[in-house]
């Protein structure tokens, strides 16, 4: 089994991009990183110095401290660099000096990084006041001139090698502490760390097993940078006479050179220059190495980027070759003829695509992520970056083939003839400028300043943003409003074609519906042609006139909306259609184990009087012991606070009450930000509720101590959203699945068989094939089954699944839902299934609780809730997911 180097590298780097998310156009794999050459040079410098230091006796013929010649001898054969003021051989001193300078440099860097890492871990892990106090100390130390501090400490505590190391280390720990702490806070939220904490792992285990490995790269970079500064401080201290003159080091050489006014004599050449340059070589070696390691730790710094977009082979140059007239199909705004885009030699992202978009027409382009639809969009805009380039084909817009235009001409086309609504438009607005100014900037391309400002106002109102909000900054807008602003910007110069790449991803169902209605409305009013690209077939199907299905760079199906939706010819289209469960038609038969849906819970009068608030509590007539989990009026207020500052409180969940029976799946449905995840985390005790009580198997968890709470958590389990992120890539499947058992304290012998049975239960048979694999060596489907196996191996009484399927593509989603339902039916486990998708909830859950703005507004047996929802918001949710607006 070869060691998973690149997997570890990818995981250690904490690469944030989700599996399969389209890469930014400007990033490209090819070409060396900026850090490689300096890294090699730095490494070479240090290697030479290290060797010289190691084999000093061999290299230097003389004893550095013996008087082996007359004082102030000029360089000669016997003394390569001459002698100093007492006749000691300077060359020997230079060689032996390497030992002290490097030793002190590296040792004090070790001390500095050790203290820094400890402070970072404590501050990053425990947060709250502890973090605030520590960080204030870090700021104070950083601000204090550390060289002056070093001078003061060196003067006080003497000059021994050890004291010097401690003094320099004590002065430099603040910078690594600050850098590493921000990294710890980031990693702490990674899903495999949250899962570990949810499993009740002790802080020691979480830090040791999960946090530290991911910090290693950055810690190494900080170590090298600290060594760089340490060598400099040691030299400065020695030069100022605060080092130990009896130690042979470059700093002391310069000290004696300076006090003997060497640089007034010719001696400066062989007495001052060599140690100075040696110091520079050591420090620059460390700096280069530090930079290379840092770049390895954060590849974004490295990837070479050019701002010259890729042009078709002979495209720009061949423009003059012939201006053959291009036959145009009448009424077509955009015609793409067998367009092919190639990355490295073999990889064709877009392979011979043909499509036409007529005036005022909406053409939907559907395909899974990685099918090349985004690359096609970028090709249209001429925003492809090396190594991607168009190898053949034409893209004709209003009679001109974009591929033959020179970059300047194409740049003028962008925003005027064709404009783009980019992916994840959430952060496509510059946070530093007001929304109005950015739209006006676009409009200013075709008109003067004032007209552009007026135009921007009109556009923003056109897309439904009230006038008084135009002057706001992007961070003051909701996701939906930012999307509307981007659309306004795209329409600034009355383009004839609008390319919308995943315009509704990341928005909740209700806003998605409104954005689509806006696009349709704009098409009708302005007659603009729209190429709508998305992975969500039903969503596109609602509005598109024609539909195209793209699979691995090729169009596999095209036709009018009716044809493609009602009788898809290509097998892939059929699979796509099946993956989106409709809301009507026969529901999966529920297994018979549950004792039927219970009626509306009746409550003591005091609670009932609350307005539309419906609690998810079971009717009190069921004996308490049968109920697995009860939440009574739990609310949790999120308030960011530092030592002295408290931001205004934000209510995360407000007066939530619910209960779950064994063998029952309660679905928690609501928009993102409604507080679903907060409820999940509060159940597991990862967040302490501010008010209300939580009972698990009758035991009140609210005021339990942290260790006691950790014991209880062993009887619960948390499944998180990203299959890749929630598995520690450095652990093999055997260790991953066995982690809950290890935390519970079972011996290796006891764990083995239970892991095997768990794997087989989730369909990973024969278990032996998978036991020793690393997560990256599993397929998507296999990878998603491991967390489920991990969930059932410990036979927890309650599993909280937080959006377990939202990232999976359709086929895989169905199999996971079956697994979950299997666990409920066969093992009688209780589930809290958190999702934003009502359709999925309907398919898997026994009861559904709808959450809106932190409150449970309705909780009902699944079928009854779907058939006749009571609360207005639930109705909108239902309508949105059925696509009926």
């Amino acid at each position: 089994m070869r060691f998973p180097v690149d997997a570890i590298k990818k995981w250690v780097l904490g690469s944030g991009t989700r599996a399969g998310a389209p890469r930014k156009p400007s990033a490209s794999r090819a070409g060396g990183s900026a850090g490689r050459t300096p890294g090699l040079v730095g490494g070479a410098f240090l290697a030479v110095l290290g060797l010289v230091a190691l084999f000093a006796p061999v290299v230097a013929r003389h004893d550095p401290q013996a008087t082996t010649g007359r004082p102030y001898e000029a360089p000669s054969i016997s003394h390569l660099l001459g002698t100093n003021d007492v006749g000691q051989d300077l060359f020997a001193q230079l060689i032996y000096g390497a030992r002290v300078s490097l030793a002190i440099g590296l040792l004090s860097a070790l001390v500095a990084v050790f203290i820094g890492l400890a402070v970072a871990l404590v501050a990053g892990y425990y947060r709250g006041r502890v973090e605030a106090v520590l960080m204030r100390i870090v700021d104070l130390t950083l601000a204090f001139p550390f060289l002056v501090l070093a001078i003061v400490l060196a003067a006080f505590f003497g000059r021994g090698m050890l004291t010097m190391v401690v003094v320099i280390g004590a002065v430099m720990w603040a910078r690594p502490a600050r850098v590493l702490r921000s990294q710890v806070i980031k990693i702490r939220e990674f899903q495999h760390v949250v899962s570990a904490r949810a499993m009740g792992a002790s802080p020691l285990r979480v830090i040791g097993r999960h946090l530290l490995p991911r910090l290693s790269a950055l810690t190494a970079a900080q170590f090298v940078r600290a060594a760089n500064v340490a060598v400099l401080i040691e030299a400065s201290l020695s030069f100022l006479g605060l080092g130990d003159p009896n130690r042979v080091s470059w700093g002391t050489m310069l000290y004696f050179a300076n006090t003997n006014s060497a640089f007034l004599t010719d001696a400066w050449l062989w007495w001052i220059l060599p140690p100075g340059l040696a110091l520079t070589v050591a420090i620059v070696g460390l700096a280069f190495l530090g930079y290379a390691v840092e770049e390895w730790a954060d590849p974004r710094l490295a990837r070479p980027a050019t701002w010259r977009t890729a042009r078709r082979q002979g495209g720009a140059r061949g423009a003059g070759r012939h201006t053959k007239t291009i036959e145009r199909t009448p009424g077509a705004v955009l015609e793409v003829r067998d367009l092919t885009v190639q990355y490295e030699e073999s990889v064709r992202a877009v392979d011979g695509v043909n499509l036409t978009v007529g005036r005022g027409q909406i053409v939907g382009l559907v395909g899974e992520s990685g099918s090349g639809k985004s690359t096609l969009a970028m090709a249209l805009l001429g925003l492809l970056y090396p190594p991607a380039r168009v190898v053949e084909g034409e893209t004709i817009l209003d009679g001109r083939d974009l591929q033959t235009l020179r970059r300047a001409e194409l740049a003028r086309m962008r925003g005027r003839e064709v404009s783009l609504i980019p992916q994840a438009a959430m952060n496509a607005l510059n946070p530093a400028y007001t929304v109005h100014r950015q739209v006006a900037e676009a409009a200013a391309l075709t008109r003067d300043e004032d007209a552009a400002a007026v135009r921007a106002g009109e556009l923003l109102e056109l897309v439904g943003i009230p006038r008084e909000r135009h002057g706001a900054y992007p961070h003051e807008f909701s996701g939906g409003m930012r999307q509307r602003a981007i659309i306004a910007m795209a329409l600034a110069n009355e383009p004839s074609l609008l390319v919308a790449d995943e315009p509704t991803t990341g928005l909740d169902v209700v806003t998605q519906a409104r954005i689509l209605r806006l696009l349709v409305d704009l098409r009708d009013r302005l007659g603009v042609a729209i190429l709508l690209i998305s992975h969500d077939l039903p969503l596109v199907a609602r509005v598109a006139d024609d539909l195209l299905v793209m699979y691995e760079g090729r169009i596999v199906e095209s036709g009018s909306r009716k044809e493609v939706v009602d009788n898809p010819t290509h097998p892939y289209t059929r699979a796509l259609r099946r993956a989106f469960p409709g809301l009507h038609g026969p529901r999966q038969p529920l297994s018979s184990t549950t004792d039927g849906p219970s009626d509306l819970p009746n409550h003591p009068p005091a609670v009932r009087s609350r307005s539309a608030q419906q609690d998810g509590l079971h009717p009190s007539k069921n004996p308490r012991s049968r109920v697995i989990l009860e939440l009574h009026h739990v609310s949790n207020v999120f308030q960011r606070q530092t030592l002295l500052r408290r931001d205004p409180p934000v209510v995360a969940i407000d007066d939530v009450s619910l209960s779950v029976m064994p063998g029952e799946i309660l679905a928690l449905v609501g928009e993102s930000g409604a507080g679903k995840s907060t409820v999940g985390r509060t159940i597991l005790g990862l967040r302490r509720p501010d008010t209300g009580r939580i009972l698990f198997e009758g035991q009140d968890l609210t005021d339990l101590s942290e260790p006691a709470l950790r014991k209880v958590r062993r009887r619960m389990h948390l499944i998180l959203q990203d299959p890749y992120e929630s598995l520690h890539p450095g652990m093999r499947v055997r260790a991953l699945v066995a982690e809950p058992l290890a935390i519970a304290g079972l011996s290796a012998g006891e764990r083995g068989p239970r892991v095997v049975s768990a794997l087989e239960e989730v369909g990973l048979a024969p278990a032996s094939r998978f036991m020793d694999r690393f997560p990256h060596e599993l397929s998507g489907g296999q990878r998603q089954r491991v967390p489920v196996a991990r969930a059932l191996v410990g036979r927890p009484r309650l599993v909280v699944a937080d959006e377990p399927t939202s990232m999976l593509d359709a086929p895989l989603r169905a199999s996971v839902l079956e697994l979950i339902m299997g666990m409920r039916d066969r093992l009688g486990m209780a589930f809290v299934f958190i999702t934003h998708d009502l359709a999925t909830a309907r398919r898997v859950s026994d009861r559904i609780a709808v959450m809106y703005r932190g409150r449970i507004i309705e909780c009902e047996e699944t079928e009854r809730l779907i058939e006749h929802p009571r609360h207005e918001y639930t109705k909108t949710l239902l309508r949105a997911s059925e696509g009926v607006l």
Partner: protein
Amino acid sequence: MTAHAARTLLQYGLVLLVAVVLNFALPRLAPGNPVDYLLPPEQAGSLTPEQRERVLSQYGLDEPVSVQFREYLAGLVRGDLLYSIRYGRPVGELLVERVGWSALLIGGGAVLSTVIGTLLGFWSAWRRGRAGDVRTLSAVMLIDSMPPFFVGMLLILLFSVQLGLFPIISAMPAIGDVSPVEVGKRLVLPLATLTLAGIGPVYLVARSALISELQEDYVLMARAKGLILRQVRRHAQRNALLPVSTVLLTSLGALVGGAAVVETVFSYPGIGRLIYEGVLARDYPVLQGAFLLLTIGVLAANFVNDLLYPLLDPRVRHSRSASA
């Protein structure tokens, strides 16, 4: 805004308090005391115990530490920084004489290194990974790695001793012609040394800040929206300035430290050298006064940064409530 301002002032007050106590305690931790330095046995002859007492009392060093501390605090309140033991002159006066020189050196160094570092950093970021970037990166790192005192010695050797362009002793000529030319001539080499030492950190931060900004979606949108390269560049660089302003703050400490070394090499009459000699002479009042000045300087820089930050990054402003 006032609640926030009150809170920040409270924080600064707390830091100042801690600094005041530290400034008092740190120098006294050192072995040896100022009177030993002042009256060396060889020169000052043997002092009978009572005579030694009298000298100690002159500087209030014979009282218990708690009394000294109260006196020190009382002095602070009155704005009197007591008398330097070594110079026998009010510390306030000593600081005033030197703060001008130091401000010129450190302020100039900070401004120059920031401007040059940021321009080079942005220039490199636009060519990230290609020849121009790698060469600038290596060149800046090479210069940044040369120990400041070594650079200082080289500059003295080259420009003062060999070419005689600049004076070696940066002290002012006795015949007090404080003409800008004189000040300028004495400032050039120390300032060059300090600036060279300061460019590195700013360059690296500016470069990586702009590189990460270039990855943001709004830059892609700016291009898609048809803006010419210069406008796109302005968008990204505007946001990359944020991290640069914070690094300027944290590297302030390093700059003052560097200044101490540079002032010693050039015998430049600044605060750095005053501290260095104060440490040797265990001149408590001078150290207390100088460290206090440094702390106030750092807090002021912090405060300016807090004021500037919202201007640079609207997200931090406490204006209207969160999204509708």
